């Protein structure tokens, strides 16, 4: 490691004050501190020792928690593809196909995002923050598998600049950066990010293997199927089963829980989201209150919907869908575990986290069931609650201040 250290030391004068690349000092520091934890020592006054955990370690913990969802997503994309083409692919074929679709998106997300981030760090002379380690992965995982790469790049730039840097960078953003990227695509290029056709077709594979998808195949997401059933009046569970029989994709509760359904890269598997949740909660990185609140809120709202969907009431079938189906469909689990818990954009008081989490769950179900324009509710619910979170905190903080004031009078 001495070699690498020497390499950095050799470059150092160029980046110091008066050096030819002085402006890029922050990039030098950023890379050096990734290779080597810095040799900074504590100040002469105040805490003389510091906790061994830094922000880099916190962030990498989140990345590790995302890996199960990423790996499963890669496999599932291959799986969905071979269902679409009607042939049974081997495990390895599925994995290779999935990797060929996902890795370019991941690379574009990281490359474009980091380039944007570095540009801002150099202009503002800020240290490079490790926040994008997580954001880069999240952006890739909420993309549909066959999204054009230029759209990924555009969304990433939009999210980093408008979502984060204009507010002052890491730690200052109001909205979750990855959700901002997805929302941007959702409203700017709706054709490529929703609908029935984006989940399993692949020009890439077609050109490689010369096997187009079966005619008339619909790779609709479970949420789309549910939404359609609310229009034609079939009970949702029945519609899911019918769809299953017609196209081979298994929309049973168990299959949806496992994640063998079409959807964005990382969102389909509730199981993998839960594995991530266990990692995040056990390491203390994410708030269990937000996660439990999110799932609980969605389930309770599902039950409320059920209660209003009794016999003789003229309501859409989506309302009558068993409440626990909400928890495994779409991106709810992924969103609640990885998006809602982003500490910067979430509520920051402990009571606030409960309220924030529960409302995300509740809102997701309301948007799904009652809003014809948006089959998926979690994205809008998280973004909306990001905006509301400071308000929730405001009242929790105000209660704290009031307690202090009341104390004075007694």
């Amino acid at each position: 490691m001495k070699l690498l250290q020497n390499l950095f030391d050799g470059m150092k004068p160029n980046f110091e004050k008066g050096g030819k690349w002085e402006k890029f000092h922050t990039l030098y520091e950023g890379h050096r501190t990734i290779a080597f934890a810095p040799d900074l020592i504590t100040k002469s006054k105040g805490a003389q020792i510091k906790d061994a955990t830094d922000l880099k370690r916190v962030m990498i913990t989140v990345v590790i928690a995302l890996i199960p969802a990423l790996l499963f997503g890669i496999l599932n994309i291959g799986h969905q593809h071979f269902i679409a083409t009607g042939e049974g692919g081997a495990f390895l074929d599925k994995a290779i196909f999935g990797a060929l679709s996902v890795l370019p998106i991941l690379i574009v997300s990281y490359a474009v995002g980091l380039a944007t981030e570095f540009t801002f760090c150099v202009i503002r002379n800020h240290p490079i923050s490790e926040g994008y380690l997580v954001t880069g992965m999240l952006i890739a995982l909420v993309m549909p598998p066959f999204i054009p790469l230029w759209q990924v790049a555009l969304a990433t730039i939009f999210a980093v600049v408008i979502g984060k840097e204009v507010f002052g960078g890491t730690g200052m953003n109001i909205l979750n950066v990855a959700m901002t990227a997805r929302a941007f695509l959702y409203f700017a290029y709706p054709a490529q990010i929703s609908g029935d056709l984006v989940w399993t077709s692949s020009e890439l594979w077609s050109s490689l293997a010369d096997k187009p998808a079966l005619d008339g195949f619909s790779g609709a997401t479970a949420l789309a199927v549910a939404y359609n059933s609310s229009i034609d009046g079939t009970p949702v569970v029945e519609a899911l089963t019918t769809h299953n029989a017609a196209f081979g994709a298994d929309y049973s509760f168990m299959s949806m829980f496992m994640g063998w359904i079409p959807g964005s890269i990382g969102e389909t598997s509730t199981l993998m989201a839960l594995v991530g949740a266990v990692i995040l909660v056990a390491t203390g990185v994410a708030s269990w209150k937000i996660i439990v609140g999110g799932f609980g809120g969605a389930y309770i709202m599902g039950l409320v919907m059920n209660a209003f969907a009794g016999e003789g009431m003229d309501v859409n079938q989506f309302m009558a869908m068993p409440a626990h189906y909400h928890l495994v469909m779409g991106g709810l689990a992924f969103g609640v575990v990885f998006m809602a818990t982003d500490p910067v954009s979430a509520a920051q008081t402990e009571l606030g986290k409960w309220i924030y989490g529960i409302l995300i769950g509740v809102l997701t179900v309301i948007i799904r069931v009652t809003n014809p324009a948006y089959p998926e509710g979690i994205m809008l619910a998280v973004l909306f609650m990001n905006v509301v979170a400071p308000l929730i905190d405001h009242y929790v903080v105000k209660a704290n201040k009031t307690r202090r004031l009341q104390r004075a009078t007694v």
Partner: protein
Amino acid sequence: MSKIVKLKKGFDLKLVGKAPLELIQVAAATTFAIKPTDFPGIQRPKVLVNEGDTVKAGTPILLDKAMDQVIYASPVSGEIVEIKRGDKRKLLEIKILADSSVSHLKVGALDLGQDRATLAEKLAASGVWPNIIQRPFGIVANPADSPKAIFVSGFDTHPLAAEVPFILQGEGRYFQAGIDALAKLTTGKVHLNVDGAKQVDEVFAGIKNAQVNQFSGPHPAGNVGTQIHHLDPINKGDIAWTVSAYGVSQIGKFVLEGIYDASKVIALTGSEMSQKGYVKTYTGANVSSFLGGIAQPETLRIISGNVLTGEKIEKDGYLGFYHNQVTVIPEGKYEEFLGWLKPSASKLSFHKALGMFSFLKGGEFKVDTNNHGEERPFVVSGVFEKVMPMDILPTYLFKAIVTEDFDEMEELGLYEVIEEDVALCEFVDPSKNELQNLVRHGIELLMYN
């Protein structure tokens, strides 16, 4: 009514280098210093002696022109050898070369039957007064104030801290006299807060004139700020005083014998301290004689006080006025390959983030002064709250100070905390912000605006 408070929030830092409970023999310190920088409230320090003057223990050598009834006295008898000033003639140290045997300035025992004002005036002129700290703000108390209560913490939960009952051995009579004197100064009660997890120590047993409360739980249960919050919290406009247990007995000795006795028992601690144990010396001692036998002191950090709230001093530096501990640990000036990623069970961490297994490993940790990362904006939420056993929202308080929002600072509880109350927050902060400095900055904003 005495109160029993059990706290859950907090964190005990278990470190290598505890001092065994015994007095050890080391070469006696010969020079001593009073450092105005030890007293954050001093505004216009004025030196009352010149280089070359001889003084007795108790001779006034310093005062604050903003509160000139309180004097700061020489801890030993001897000769003023240096008045050290820094940039812009800022007064740094008044150094005294001690006589071989200390002779005291004698003013005669104090009659506690006198009225409050006279009593306060005499204590202020004696040298023992700077032991009395005012909350809010953590500054030397103003003798003209009548505090609503006085708080004394009878135990110290800081890392490797000196055992209070041990350093007060045989001082029970003085301690009681100190409590009696303090009881005269307040309109309310004197609270003596003892460690609820242990049997009440001999020196505190049967104490009269004070309400004895029991606190138990992890650090900062022994911090007087935590205790005040749970007994009789400070609101805007309130004034309370705090005195360390050592300070109480020093005041008591003045009451009974009429002398300013600055002798104190201090703990020599830390993984790199060559001889660990307790030594008897005086306030402001030069630490070099305690460090005998330490090789390569430049690779080490010598700390006056404990590792959370202490101050770095040179190897021939002086013990802080309020400190009764010297800690020596390694400096951490090294780069570590992928240090932010490597799993480790031997690095002390409050967190359980990826690869940090210290929570699984029991026992004591060896620590150094490495910062373990660079400074970052606040990102992670809910961490400070886990180590703050008060109904205070630390993150919001810190942000209010950063933005210099005076109303918010007041409303969020800046009157209730000083540096030591947020020291644990500073330790656990993954964003490595200097929170103790920040709190002092906020306090200064409130005090002087």
